[in-house]
């Protein structure tokens, strides 16, 4: 009972964050917070500003205004590489892997800053096995399938042993079996205590795994709640689910 009364620790707080590109207001006064260990999905129609929010959280785009707090620390003005070292990791929308390099070279880039040299090979093996691409050998990444590249990027994102994982459309372009495996992987990572914020258009995938859902529309927060509340929200159905 006492535990229930204790407020949960926030891993991420976005406080009235905005982003302008020239004259275009991509995100406006967007606020959202995430508890530690939460699995939250950010949904919204194309162009709603979801990826822009992700890139602001990661520090790839600086926020035009507002405040981003990660694990109690204001990180609004620090660089992406520093945010990564503080325990934040991202899988981009378009697979953010190095196609010209090999699978293991990609893993080395991701892991070298975080894993002691002696344990590097072992840790890379563990992560490759975790995402089920251990049987591929060490191909050049451009020779891997889209799904394998997505999983490789998740493995790369996990190499820093992050506290918060940002996944931008982890199921995009995957077949049913690949989507199933990705859902299991994301759920299992969350059960191990990893906080995960993900963007996804595949509502079956979202229904299957998300605890909480935040809906964006025209750069603003439109709705927020549990997956059941969201899928039954008439306004959301009208702007988003009704069109899909």
């Amino acid at each position: 009972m006492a535990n229930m009364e204790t407020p949960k620790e926030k891993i991420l707080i976005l406080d009235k964050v905005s982003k302008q590109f020239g004259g275009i207001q991509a995100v406006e006064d967007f606020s959202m917070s995430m508890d530690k260990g939460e699995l939250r999905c950010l949904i919204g129609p194309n162009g709603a500003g979801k990826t822009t929010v992700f890139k602001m959280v990661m520090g790839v785009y600086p926020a035009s205004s507002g405040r981003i707090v990660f694990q109690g620390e204001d990180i609004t003005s620090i660089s992406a590489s520093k945010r990564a070292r503080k325990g934040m990791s991202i899988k981009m929308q378009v697979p953010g892997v190095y196609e010209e390099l090999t699978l293991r070279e990609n893993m080395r880039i991701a892991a070298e800053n975080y894993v002691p040299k002696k344990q590097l090979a072992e840790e890379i093996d563990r992560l490759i096995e975790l995402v089920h691409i251990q049987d591929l050998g060490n191909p050049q990444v451009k020779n891997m399938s889209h799904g394998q590249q997505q999983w490789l990027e998740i493995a790369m994102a996990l190499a820093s042993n992050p506290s918060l994982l940002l996944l931008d459309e982890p199921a995009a372009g995957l077949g049913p079996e690949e989507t199933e495996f990705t859902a299991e992987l994301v759920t299992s990572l969350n059960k191990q205590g990893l906080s995960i914020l993900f963007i996804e258009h595949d509502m079956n995938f979202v229904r299957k795994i998300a605890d909480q859902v935040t809906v964006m529309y025209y750069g603003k927060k439109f709705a927020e709640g549990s997956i059941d509340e969201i899928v039954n929200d008439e306004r959301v159905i009208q702007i988003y689910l009704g069109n899909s």
Partner: protein
Amino acid sequence: MFGDIFAYIYQFIDSFAFLVLAALGMAIIYGMMGITNMAQGELIMIGAYVTDIMVCNLGMPLIIGIIIGTVFTGFVGLLMDRLIIKRLYDRPLDSVVATWGLSIALAQLIYIIFGPSMTGVSIPLGSFKVAGRSYSYYRLLLVAIAIVLILITFLVFKYTKFGLHSRATMQNREIANSLGVNANKMNAGTFMLGSALAGLCGGLYLPTMSLTPSYGESFLVQSFVTVLVGGADPLLGTVLAGGGLGIVQSILNMKFNTFYGKIGILLMAILFIRILPNGFSGYFNGVRLKMKLKKEKNRGDK
């Protein structure tokens, strides 16, 4: 007959070494950062001046002078990167103008400080004769250094953490940053390395040329053309362009004189812009990709 063949081979490897040593630093900066450093010649000049001061004024051995010149030029490059180049990472055309302006300023600064010429350093190691013609051991040493440098550069970019992170930053700065790689630091390190290689070239060729504020100009055209003909891959491009241009230059130097050798190199540059605008490495990578696609298509048909 043997004497003539040896003379051609000697001339070729000498041209190859000159082109590789002059262009390697520029090729790394261009290939890894997309910056065309028009001040590369002046960095070569700085390496030569520092080496000359160490050897002639402070009485140090040539090798120590060259090492100090290399390190000093590397730090000049780092300073250039932090003050100017870092503002131009995503502006390749602006970087040409800015570094060109910098090259003029540096040459004039050297002229104001040291005057129109400096005491030279004599060629060490002596010479040997083949079929009555005299050849320098030092120039053979330069060839060996060029080959060793290519190998070291290959190993650094292929196997070290710096090399891997530098390639990662070159291919996608955004991803590199998100993985915790400090892309700015990697770029600064790459520019410093390219500048140090320029300083090394300046020091190495000091005994073979007279030292004036226009010393860097003797290298800039050749290194620029080598990078242009080689394409974006700093190693494959430099080796192939060094080899190809070396053949053209050595034949023209031997048949006519060095003036025609330089004209030949410029003509090659014009020819490459017209026929292979992505240079040797762009062409070979294209061929490799076509072969791979053909192989995949054949596999699919089966």
